[in-house]
């Protein structure tokens, strides 16, 4: 906790002037707030706090990432399905290039039937997200699989103002109803909690409804100097939701389809997951030992149709995917302060998934037409990493290490003649970060690291798609390989005053050759090399301890190195701005703007630009809390996702196999009112 000293910021002067004019007694500007931890890995590392999250409208825990400069989220299904992520020129799909952990539990689903590295934080209650630490790039040894574009580490807990018994009800204009009830010891640390949440929403357009129930709980079993700290956490939930799919741009332009319409009312999904973890920490002198063990079950069921009747004009192209998986893992971490300037850190562990999955082409009555995928497998990731944190002088910090990962997989593919196969892959990833405090208010950073994405399970099998007319000599199936990305970043942070700061980072990522899972055709594709160059500029200002204004812009030049063609879908220019107010009087407000330049789509097509403006305003008084959240204040037709692929829907006068732009709508203007109480 820190007392902030506020200098004469121009905005503050305006406020004071207004206060004088209105004869309002100035508020207590010298407020006490919880100090932000300044991330130190790289110039672009970002920390999102519970305060940030509470001040903007969010629906899911993933929405917290919308506050991260340069990170773009798209929901191309409906609330309940995993998001698509774009970061620094990466189209990370559903998580193939972005690692997320929740209290040290790896959250990416390695070989989910829908997408590699699939991310779904649906069972994480957003109000429990105390902090999200984002590293853009694979720069620390703790970053594991899928961290090629970066990592987001969620930490759960309850902030002081919400401790005690807590309940809140939210009602929205889309017939959204959300009830949350929970408890955290009033005088505790926020690490103990139990929170229950239930949501119903009709959604803002056709086929976007959701029903969800979630339970999050954690109990600190003991916490002593002698025996350390042991906690047990359980996260669980289930949801059923509609999946609207995407709408052809030409159908929107002609009025054949409404902006929030859906072609196929059968699109739906069910998602359920339960995770239990045990976390232990022991500190003795210069040594610190931590360990986490976890296990869980996952079920995902999706019925979607993006291409209409293109591939099967009679039955349609609906696809029913099911995925069931048991996952478990163990990680131990050890730190040793060898001397004041040198610390060793090392860790080892494993992560495993036993899964069973299927993808079935289904007809109009959801009857089975053919089985496209029927896979069972066991995947295990063994890892160890170690390194040193070295601070030879006060101004210089160096953290260097290496990470070793061994990937083991055994897969039974029931669609091929030789169903049982296995494989092992190995990858070594050096990582280093360094920071130099050049002046008291200027710090420079450099970082380098190698990130990796393990191969998707089916890429190890002998599965080859049906083909005709191919001479045998052309067929040369490649086995799934580990994709590695070499990333580097350099930049600085400059804080000319206590109320103003800025950071500038230049980054580069090189991928020599990429193995990627095409999550519809079931192909593991080998793509040509890519490189991504760019820069990120962030400026923030804290005119008061209770206000933060920030703005950012990220430019990325992402190209395939051979052809020079742009990497499609990923935005080349992203800008954002936000204002967060949490006044000690209880007044809270937030304003968030996101702008995306037109995104490059394949074949010289371009998406529209995108602008989103959300706001919230609330007031907290003696445990009561009211808030109004408004999404899309300008009521613009948000083309949140735009894609380029062929489809054949009955709206088309003639069958065409040519790709066309398809649009996924973001929310229209809608409002949600929330009232809550916490106390006792």
């Amino acid at each position: 906790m820190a007392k902030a000293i506020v200098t004469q910021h121009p905005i503050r002067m305006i406020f004071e002037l207004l206060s004088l004019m209105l004869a309002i007694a100035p508020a207590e500007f010298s407020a006490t707030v919880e100090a932000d931890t300044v991330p130190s890995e790289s110039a672009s590392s970002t920390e999102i706090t519970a305060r940030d999250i509470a001040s903007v409208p969010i629906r899911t825990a993933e929405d917290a990432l919308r506050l991260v400069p340069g990170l773009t989220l798209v929901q191309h299904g409906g609330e309940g399905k995993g998001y698509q992520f774009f970061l620094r020129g990466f189209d990370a799909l559903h998580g193939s290039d972005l690692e997320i952990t929740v209290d040290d539990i790896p959250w990416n689903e390695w070989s989910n039937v829908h997408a590699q590295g699939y991310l779904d934080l649906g069972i994480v209650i957003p109000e429990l997200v105390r902090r999200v630490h984002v590293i853009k790039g694979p720069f620390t040894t703790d970053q594991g699989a899928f961290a090629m574009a970066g990592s987001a580490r969620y930490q759960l807990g309850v902030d002081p103002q919400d401790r005690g018994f807590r309940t809140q009800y939210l009602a929205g204009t889309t017939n959204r109803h959300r009830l949350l009830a929970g408890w955290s010891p009033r005088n505790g640390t926020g690490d103990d909690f139990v929170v229950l949440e239930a949501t119903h929403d009709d959604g803002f357009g056709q086929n976007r409804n959701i029903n969800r129930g979630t339970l999050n709980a954690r109990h600190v079993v003991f916490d002593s100097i002698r025996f350390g700290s042991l906690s047990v956490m359980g996260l669980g939930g289930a949801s059923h939701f509609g999946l609207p799919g995407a709408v052809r741009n030409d159908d929107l332009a002609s009025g054949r389809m409404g902006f929030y319409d859906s072609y196929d009312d059968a699109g739906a999904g069910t998602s359920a997951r339960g995770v239990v973890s045990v976390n232990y920490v022991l500190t003795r002198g210069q040594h610190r030992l931590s360990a986490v063990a976890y296990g869980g079950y996952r079920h995902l069921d999706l019925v979607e149709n993006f291409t209409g009747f293109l591939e099967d004009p009679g039955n349609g192209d609906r696809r029913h995917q099911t995925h069931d998986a048991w996952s478990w893992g163990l990680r131990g971490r050890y730190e040793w302060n060898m001397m004041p300037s040198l610390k060793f850190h090392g860790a080892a562990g494993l992560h495993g998934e036993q899964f069973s999955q299927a993808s079935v082409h289904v007809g109009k009555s959801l009857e089975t037409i053919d089985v496209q995928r029927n896979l069972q497998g066991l995947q295990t990731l063994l890892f160890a990493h170690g390194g040193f944190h070295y601070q030879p002088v006060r101004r210089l910090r160096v953290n260097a290490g290496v990470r070793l990962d061994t990937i083991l997989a055994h897969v039974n593919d029931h669609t091929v003649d030789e169903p049982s196969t296995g494989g092992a892959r190995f990858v070594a990833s050096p990582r280093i970060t360094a920071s130099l405090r050049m002046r008291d208010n200027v710090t420079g950073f450099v970082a380098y690291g190698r990130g990796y994405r393990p191969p998707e399970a089916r890429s190890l099998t002998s599965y080859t798609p049906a083909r005709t007319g191919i001479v045998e000599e052309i067929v040369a199936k490649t086995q799934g390989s580990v994709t590695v990305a070499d990333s580097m970043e350099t930049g600085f942070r400059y804080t000319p005053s206590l109320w103003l700061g800025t950071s500038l980072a230049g980054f580069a990522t090189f991928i020599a050759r990429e193995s990627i899972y095409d999550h519809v055709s079931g192909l593991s594709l080998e793509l040509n090399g890519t490189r991504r160059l760019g820069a990120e500029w962030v400026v923030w200002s804290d005119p008061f301890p209770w206000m933060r204004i920030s703005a950012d812009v990220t430019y990325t030049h992402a190209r395939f190195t051979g052809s020079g063609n742009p990497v499609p879908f990923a935005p080349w220019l992203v800008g954002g701005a936000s204002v967060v107010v949490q006044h000690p009087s209880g007044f809270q407000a937030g304003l968030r703007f996101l702008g995306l330049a037109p995104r490059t789509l394949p074949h010289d097509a371009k998406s529209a630009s995108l602008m989103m403006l959300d706001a919230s305003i609330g007031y907290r008084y003696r445990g009561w809390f009211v808030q109004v959240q408004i999404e899309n204040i300008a009521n613009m037709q948000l083309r949140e996702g735009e894609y380029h692929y062929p489809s054949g829907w009955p709206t088309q006068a003639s069958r065409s196999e040519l790709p066309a732009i398809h649009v996924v709508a973001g929310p229209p203007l809608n409002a949600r009112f929330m009232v809550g109480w916490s106390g006792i």
Partner: protein
Amino acid sequence: MGFKIIVCGMIFLAMGCSTASESPQVTFPVRINDGEIAPFDTALGYRVDLNEARLAVKNIVFTVSGELHTASLWDFFVPSAYAHPGHYEGGDVTGQLAGAWALDLNNTGHELGSATLLPGKYFGVNFGFSRGNASMGLAEGDPMIGHTAIFRGTARKLGIEYPFEVITDSEEDRILVGAPFGATLDGSSHGVIGLMYKPVDPYEKDTAFDDLDFSTFTPDDDGVIRIVPGKNSVEDAYNKFHRRFETHDHYSFSYNQAPMHVTAYGESFIENGIPASAVSDGWALSYKKFDVQLKDIHVAGATFAGPISVDLTKKSQGHGTLVGSASVNVGSYAGGEFTIDTITIEGTATKGNIQKQFAWTLNNATDYSNCHSTTLIDTKAAGTFQITVHADHLLFDSIVSSDPAVGFQAFADADRNNDGHITPAELLDTDIKTFDPGNAAINNLWDWLLALSATVGHINGEGHCHAAPHTHDL
């Protein structure tokens, strides 16, 4: 709405408020290319000459490789790799020509229709094998009806001829995947896509007929060997042929090539004769034969070695007579070269009730080069390079004058024996009198005529060429 514009304009000025834009689409005619199918040799030593090759196909689609790594080249041949949000475009179909056709593969220049393609680097074409039916324009009773392909021709070996007919049927959903098509297209591209049947695989040199040992087949009563579906005695041969027939080795597509026709045209003076009004001394000429033998034609990068004889007296409605066709790159081509090897003319000159017959063969091979004309090859119509022959030049009274008189009296007077036939010998024996040969040492009318025969060649009407005695053969 105003608020939106303000928000858009003020905050997002740098990024721009733009609407989505679809890929540009370009249309290209798809035509049968490459001329008649040349005879070829099979692995068993047969020389096969196809005089009929017909194929029923449908739904042609064009594919790009996207950014797939070449190590997994096969992936882009998978036609069902349709996209889904977030996909890379590996193996995308980005061009198509929908429809079904019964193609005569020897019918060079026949247009199937216009294909629509998106910009991209194209590597392959897929199409479906179909069965001939009436909607393809086939007449009732056409043997193509119900079948995928018919090949008729003759196989020869050791001096023995084996007339044959091969009919093959493919499943209706059979797709040929990966016919080569190398082209890089952008929104400004214009050209023609040519479909080519390659009886000989250009890379492996195999043919679909390699497994057919014609000497072992029993011909039908009409002497024709028939290899058709359902005929037990040739089942093995049929299956082997069919398997090779359906591979992509024997089909290819090319871009940026448009048909160019080389024609020869004698204008009205040769097709209808030279009227008396066009001749200063009142003679009128009509031609029974005006045969020019052409060779060494070079235009737009194409070569027609020849020699090719063309009788220019055939009525052509102003189009001239086709000398040859080729697929050439779209563009504008200046110049052109050709050689007129021999001119053979037979005709009648008439004045009042006097008629004079003539039959001359003028062997004065002349190279015409640096022709002052431009040949345009584009997609709107086949480009034409017309060799125009001016028959009136043979009646000029001067080789060097820019405005010579046209007359026949001197030739009529050469008929010394007055038998009505002007022979080369009579011309050789007749002085040129007042004709102006310039510096040329020409004394008799036959040599005069040979000299004038080196001036008749033009291009595209009045385009002049540099004429010189033929110096070499290709």
